[in-house]
């Protein structure tokens, strides 16, 4: 029981799964559009929340939000399940596959054997699509891979019931119904406004551009407060969250800029193209930060790559993003 599923690689798992599942059901969508409609862009710095003993810096919204918002805003019906019983979870997956329905799963990366050992880490909110089963082997469209992959049933059970933070608890989801006519424009506007509000209007110091400035202020003090070794661990962690964890680079800024390009076409408003170009340029500035930071982490920092210099780049990003998101919000009002 294997359905035809058009696998497309993406930078980020949740927006990739969302786009691929919807496209399978006839609503063709790019990863960038899924990310934008899902209001995926964010900045948050939460030093009191620890990931592997390092402070949480996030460049995206919480896992699950993108799929939820895209489907909700487009009026798409979704069936979701979570399980405490492993057998029931696998039986329900098999039942859907027998009907030829591809299913989205939340899984723990560490237990997926097709990930090279060097790339396995304890992250329990990895999304993928199961689209078929032969014997005890599942056929999987994992959007961060170039081709489809397979996974033995026993391994998939372990991945679906991984323990720890964000434990998947067998969560699965599938598309039940897509309306025959969908107007993307209002959903795009609503999603853009949501991102703008979080980035510049919510008066919470750890979120949006305020959060970027807060992190910049903290970063300057890291060497004195934490010692050079720990400060470098903190810095390396921020750079990895920005550039590696499926962000498409620049902390998702490039993906969101691609979304704004598509939004310009859908809305028939070329001004969104200008904002898109500005955001790409800001993404490059984030990458300047990552490059200088990486040199620092490697112990080969040159002039202009001190923690104070890195903080200055972050403040520059925050200043530019403050202007950009105010301008973008104003555009949605016109």
């Amino acid at each position, binding site marked *: 029981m294997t359905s035809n599923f058009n696998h497309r690689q993406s930078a980020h798992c949740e927006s990739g799964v969302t786009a691929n599942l919807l496209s399978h059901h006839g609503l063709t969508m790019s990863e960038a559009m899924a990310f934008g409609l899902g209001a995926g862009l964010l900045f948050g710095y939460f030093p009191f929340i620890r990931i592997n003993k390092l402070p949480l810096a996030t460049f995206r919204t919480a896992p699950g939000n993108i799929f939820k918002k895209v489907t909700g805003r487009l009026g798409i019906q979704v069936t979701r399940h979570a399980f405490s019983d492993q057998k029931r979870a696998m039986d329900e997956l098999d039942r859907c596959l027998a009907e030829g329905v591809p299913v989205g799963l939340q899984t723990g990366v560490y237990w997926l054997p097709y990930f090279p050992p060097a790339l396995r880490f304890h992250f329990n909110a990895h999304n993928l699509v199961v689209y078929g089963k032969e014997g005890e082997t599942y056929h999987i469209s994992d959007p961060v891979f170039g081709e489809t992959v397979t996974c033995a049933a026993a391994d998939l059970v372990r991945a679906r019931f991984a323990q720890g933070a964000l434990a998947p608890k067998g969560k699965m989801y599938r598309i039940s119904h897509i309306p025959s006519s969908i107007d993307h424009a209002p959903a795009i506007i609503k999603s853009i406004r949501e991102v703008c509000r979080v980035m510049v209007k919510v008066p919470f110091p750890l979120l949006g551009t305020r959060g970027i400035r807060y992190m910049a202020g903290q970063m300057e003090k890291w060497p004195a407060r934490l010692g050079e070794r720990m400060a470098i661990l903190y810095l390396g962690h921020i*750079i990895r969250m920005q550039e590696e964890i499926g962000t498409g680079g620049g902390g998702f800024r490039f993906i969101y800029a691609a979304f704004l390009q598509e939004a310009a076409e859908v809305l028939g408003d070329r001004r969104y193209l200008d904002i898109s170009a500005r955001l790409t340029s800001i993404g490059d500035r984030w990458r300047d930060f990552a490059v200088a930071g990486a040199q620092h982490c490697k112990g*080969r920092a040159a002039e202009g790559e001190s923690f104070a210099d890195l903080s200055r780049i972050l403040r520059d990003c925050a200043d530019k993003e403050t202007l950009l998101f105010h301008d973008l919000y104003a555009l949605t009002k016109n």
Partner: protein
Amino acid sequence: MQDNLEKELTEMLIEACRVTDPIPAEISPDAPLIGPDSPFDLDSLDAVEVVVAVQRKYNVRIESSESSRQVLQSLRTLADYIRRHRE
């Protein structure tokens, strides 16, 4: 045997990532660029420097769906990507 672009990329990598340790005289174009088997001894933090160096030197962006994971597999995959996307 490296082609001209792959040789050029080797020099760019050494400069961008400030590689100071000696590297083999002959580097296979299929050798992994990043990771424990990299002849340049590059890791994931170096990857972002490579991405930016490619953008500056060749005006080619490595981002989004065609992710850096695949492009940065080897000198050959990187050179192929640049040839396909160079303006």
